[in-house]
Structure formats: structure tokens, C-alpha cells
């Protein structure tokens, strides 16, 4: 069992924080919103929040550009 990010399956990594996950997926856009199993994760908590097994995660990138 892994985790789901934006409806796509990814491998579960033990003790992986939100910051680590964003780095792994190369999500480096600054305007993003993270929810784990529907719960909003504040930006300041990314470094401490551990991603649980089987989590459903949405990483919403806000529109920018041009």
C-alpha cells in the first residue's frame, strides 16, 4: 500500500514529512495548498507533519504564470 497524491499512486516512505514529499515529487511552486485526508496542513507545519500510510493527499498548485 502506498499513498495517493492528486489521484495518482505513489510509494509510501516511512517518516516522510510533507516537506520531504514535496521535494520528492519536485513540487517547488511556492503557492500550494496541502490537504492530507481532507485536513488542511498549514505551510509552517510542513517540516513536522509526517505523511501517514494510505494517505490521500491533495497538493493544489494555485494558478500563476504570465
Amino acid at each position, binding site marked *: 500500500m502506498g499513498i495517493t497524491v*492528486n*489521484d*495518482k499512486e505513489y510509494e509510501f516512505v516511512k517518516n516522510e514529512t510533507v516537506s520531504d514529499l514535496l521535494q520528492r515529487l*519536485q*513540487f*517547488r*511552486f*511556492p*503557492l500550494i*495548498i496541502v490537504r492530507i485526508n481532507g485536513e*488542511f496542513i498549514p*505551510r509552517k507545519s510542513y517540516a513536522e507533519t509526517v505523511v501517514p500510510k494510505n494517505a490521500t493527499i*491533495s*497538493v*493544489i*498548485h*494555485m*494558478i*500563476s*504564470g*504570465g
Partner: protein
Amino acid sequence: MVEGQIPIQEYQTGNTKHTWNIEKLLSAHKKLSEHSYTKGIVEKGYANRTLYVNLTTGEIKEKNVSEDMKHLFTGGRGFGLKLLWDSIKPTTRWNSEENELIITTGPLCGITQYPGSGKSLCLTVSPSTNIICDSNVGGFFGPYLKFAGFDALEIQGKAKKDVVIVIDGETGTVSIESAPLEETNSHLLSEQLTHIYASEDSDVSRQKVSIVSAGTGAEHSYWGCMNFSFYDIRRKVPRLKQAGRGGLGTVLRDKHVKAIVVKVETIDGVSNHPVDPDTLAMVGTKIHREIRDLDRFQCNMRSVGTAHLAEIMDAYDLLPTENYRFGSFPKAPRIYSPEFYKLFTKIIPDGCWHGCTMACAKTVDGYTVMTGPYKGQKVTVDGPEYETVGCGSNMSLWDPLWILEFNFYCDTYGIDTISAGTAIAYYMEMYEYGILNKERCDGLELCFGNGEAVLELLHRIAKGDTGEFIQTAAKGIRRVKDWLKKKNWGEPYLIEECGMESKGLEYSEYVTKESLAMQGGYGLTLKGPQHDEAWLIFMDMVNNQIPTFQDKAEALHYFPMWRTWFGLNGLCKLPWNDIEPENNAETDEPAKVPEHVQNYVDLFTAVTGVKVDKNELINQSERCYNWQRATNVWLGRGTRKDDWIPYRSMGPVTPLEYGSRMQRYDDQLVEKLGLKKEEVEKMSIEERIKELYRYRQDQYQKLADAVYYRRGWTPNGIPTPQKMKSLGFTDKKMLSMLQKKIDEDEKNGLNKWCGTYRGKEKPPSDIPRYWEKW
């Protein structure tokens, strides 16, 4: 003064100083026509009149703006569309006598309380597309035009020789003057005219003058942009912002307009005479604080402007590289924003209109020009913005100095960086394949990464070189495709599908292969592939928020309408979503930035006194959006076939591209097309490309079906009379023209959906002529 900044008096750009013989330049001017007007007061954001100048006859007159015009067209781009509709014909082309060049403002244009409020909107029938092109631009001209007395400037006809149009808001006169001796290229011409027309020899007076110009590159190409000046009181130079897309500068020079000058007597924070200045101040203060406190944690616009997008696009495989073949590249870090940050002047604030705390207009002062007629001189380069950096990666130029050189010459020659960069990248790919070569390119070695050849091409275009390639290349990708096919120099599929243009306009700088919605964001547009209608790549490709055709169609309805609204009001889009409130993430629709939408509702009401809500803002846009599409139909385009896009924007055209992302494409053949993995492995790369090609072409047609239906158009993309009436339009000429076109389409079998629907899939409607039931 903010900590870290230095006093105005102490800053030196280090630029090469010029001494102009102003008396000599002025003595050569001959006044050809003059009109005096009564200086008015702007009321509730409107000057309530527009200015008409006919260069053929010398006629200069004022036109009233009616309440009906304000209601139906709001202002800005809307006014421009109305004025064009009243003045051109279905047969009008870019260089027709009756074609107009229009510069408009908008009711919120010129407020100083809210960032990004100094935009002008420019419209004309484009040389690239033969339909209406609109382009927005910063700088002082738009606000000054309004405060000099006019909501819009309408230029028709052609002068016999080069002229300057002078709108003098101090004396209340408009004149057409011959101007034979001034420079043509914008960085020098703007400086000369700013000094000539400033009332006094002081920086304060020079700041009250703004110049519109286009250089020699605009004369000899279809890529002409218009440069709008804003005198930088700290750098003591007129800086330039560009109305880039669609060849507006080409039309300006075709009319033999060397420049348009506007000057104002005075401006202040309430020159618009808003009905509720307190609300303006309150809403403005709120966002200024937001930008001050949050920008450094978000997009860092105040430090590097939109250039910050280079590293982001590279990370997401969206940075166009070698003519959009790839979306990332190992050398890309060399042109990330920190590399430009090193070059930007950091000690003084930037901004292209007063009160803009976002201040994204970055400059490199004292840049030493490496090539061409200004080689060795030191100049101020405005930018580069992200799009120009993206042109660098597209041409495989990985040295920031070559990108600055390209940026400087494009600007002063009056050439749109986006169209030129995208087109040259295409020529470079054709060069790689041997379809073009040194001989066919009039001696240029136009291979990827050759910055010297890129600049030489620009210099030769600007000089009016008569070489067959130079002449054709300067007209853009569409004409080069036709030329290459006529010469029989290569495989038509390769020539056609690699060239990133649609409707004749070159793409801006994003790779769209993996985002169907963004393919629509470029293709299902009014003027052509420019990202200012919708930027949906993250929402679609990364967030997976709009998985169905209906979802994508809804996004391709809402966002183009919302973004159109900025153009109706003289506003910049950036303060809407390139900065976000701290709690935006917790709102219901964070992608729309609800708090900022409410800001705009409040601003509109505070300036105009007209009570609106967020839905009415969309209605305002929808009226203009449909009017523009209908005008395109009238001009003979604006149908499904005109919304065609090249396959390079949908998927891999060549085995090299397929091979560079082989796992991704092979997986899609299995997951999306239902092929077995073993089947895919047995297929050649060419066969895999063909399968993917068929699938993705059909996806695009289904998307077009859904979008046309959502927008209230026929399956051939025609706005219906029913839709136009529901928006409040009663113009009989417009309504009967649309009905006639729909009837013709019916006879020709074009009122049908074009996607292939299998199994449970259904087109947007089963009802024939569904719009008649609305």
C-alpha cells in the same frame, strides 16, 4: 524612503549619455493638423469622450461616450472592440486604409491606491492573424491619455511621411506634426521626445510625458510591438513596457506614426474622481500590506519579477526548450532567476505605474551592448520577464547576457520578444533537420544556441534586408511554413506540426503537451495562443482538479472571462493571483482567490458608483468576449478550423521527443488507449507516435465540443444570436451576420460535433440546433 534604498539624487545608471540638439529636431517639425479641445474632468473613472485621428485626411475630432456604451462595453478592450466594429469592414486587413489602431484605458485605469492599475489596452486588425488582436501594456500612457481628456485614442488612415501625434493635456490641443529627424528606435526616440515635449527642463516635467513608439524592426516584420514609456525619475531615463502581441507596432509604422506623445498638467490619487475614495484607500492598503508581508514567501515578484517562473517551469517539465521539444534541460539553472537577480539593479524601487507595490518591472542598468548599431554603448534594459527568458531556453541560449541582448534589441527595434523567440526557435529546428541551411537562411548559421546568429537576424530585419529568408522569416512561422512547403524542402508533416503558431500568432512560452485544458487555453482563444486568457496547466496536469471535458470546459469559460475583465478596466492581472492572502488556502475556491475578487468588486463600485457583484464582473467580460469572437466571424475567421493547433503543442512530433519521455508515453498508450504492454513493446516508435497522435487529436476535438457548448456557441464555434441577445446586444448588423453564418454552416454540414464518442461517451448535446431552444 525604504531602508536600503538610496536618494534619487545619488543614483547613476552608468548608461552612455546622449546630447540632443532639441532645437534642430523641433525646427524640422511641421504642424499638419491641430485641434483644440475643452479640458474636461474625469468623472467616476471615465473621461466620457474618445479621440479620433485620421492621418489621411488630417481630421481630428472628439466622440462622446454614451451611458449605453459604458453599460455594454465597460471600457478598455470593450471600448476598443466597439470602436473597431463601427469603423472597419469585413474585408479590412492590417494594412488597409480603414484599419484602426486603438489605445484605450478603462474606468479603473490610473488609480494609484491599488497595484497594477496603469494598463493600456491596444487593438487592431493584426498582420499575423487578420483578426482583431488585443494587447495590454503598462507605462504611463494610458492613465495620461485619460487624464488629458480621453478614454480611448482611435487612429485611422495613413500619413504620407513620418509623423508624431501630440496630445497635450496642458494646453488642450491635439496635433499631427511631421517629425523627420528624430531617431526611430525606441530607447533613443523616447528619450528625445521626452525632452522635447517636457514643459520644463526638470525630471518632474519629464515624468508628465509618455511616448508610444515602435522601432525599425516593427517596420520590416509582422512582429511589431509598441513601446510605452514611463520616465523613471530615479534612473533619469524613459523606460519601456511593450504591447507585444499581434503586430500592433507593425500597424503603427505602416501608418507612418513615429510616435504618439501625451502629456498631462497634473495627476494625483483622485484624478479619476472616484465616488468613494475612502474604500479605494482601504482596499489598497490591505493589499499593499499583503504584498509587503507575503511576496517574499510566495512568488518573490518584488525581487525578480516574473523571471521567478523559469526554475518552476523547468521543475515541472514546462519550460520550452529547443522549440518546445522538451520541458526541461540540464543547462536551465544557468538562466534561473537568481542569475538575473545578480544583474538587476536592486537599490531603487520598480513599478510601471504609480502606487504599484508589486513592482515587478526589473531593470539591468549600464548593460554593455555586445552587437549591432549600439555595440559598446551602455543602456538600461527593461526585463527580462519570464516569457523572454523562456524564449532564451527555446532557442537554447543559456547565457543571461545573450537573453539581455535579445531583450534589448527586440524592445528598441519594436519587435515582440515572444513572437520572435518562438519563431526563431522553429527556424532553428528546421535548420537542425536540414530543411533550412546556411544558404537558405541568407548566410545565417541559425542553429540552436547561436546567439550571434539570432542577433544578426534581428539586425538584418531591422535594416530591411531584402534576402528571401529574412523577408519571410520576419513575417512569422505561418508564412515560413507555407514557404518551406512551396519550396518542397522537407516533409510537410514536420514543417506543419513543429511550428508553434495558431491563427498565425506564435505561442507564448509554456509546454502544453500533458495538459489538454491548456491546449484549449491556447487554441480556443480569440486572438491566438497567448496565455492571458487562461493558464490551467497546474489545475489540469498537476492538481488533477478538472478531469472531465465538462470540468475543463467550465475552467475554459470562467478563467478567460475573469481575465478579460482586467482588460476592460485598465488593470494588470498579476496582483490578482501572483500574491495571495494568507488564508486563501482555507477558502472554498482558492484558485479564484475570492478575497481579491471581492477587492475588484469593491474597487469597481468605489470608482464608478455602479453597484456590482462578482457575477456581474463576469457578465461584463462575457459581453466583450462574445463580441470579439463575433467580430472574428465577421472578418472571415473565428470558427473551429481557426482554432486548430499544431501537434507539437499536443504531443511528441518526432522520435527524439517520444524517446525523451518514453516511459510516460508508453504508459499512456496502455492506460488511456487500452493497449497491452506487450503490444506497445512490439510497436516501432513511429507507430507509437501515430497511435498517440490519433488519440490526442480526438481529445482536443472533444474539448472544443464541450467548450463551444459551455460558451453558448454552435458546434462550429459561432456565438449564436440567442446568446448575444441574452447578453443585451440588439445590434441588427451583428445578429443577422451571425444568423447568416450559422445557416451557411448548416448547409455545409458544419453544425456537428467533431469528437468521436464511443460507448457511454456522449457529446455535449443530442439536440440539433440546441441553441434555438434556449
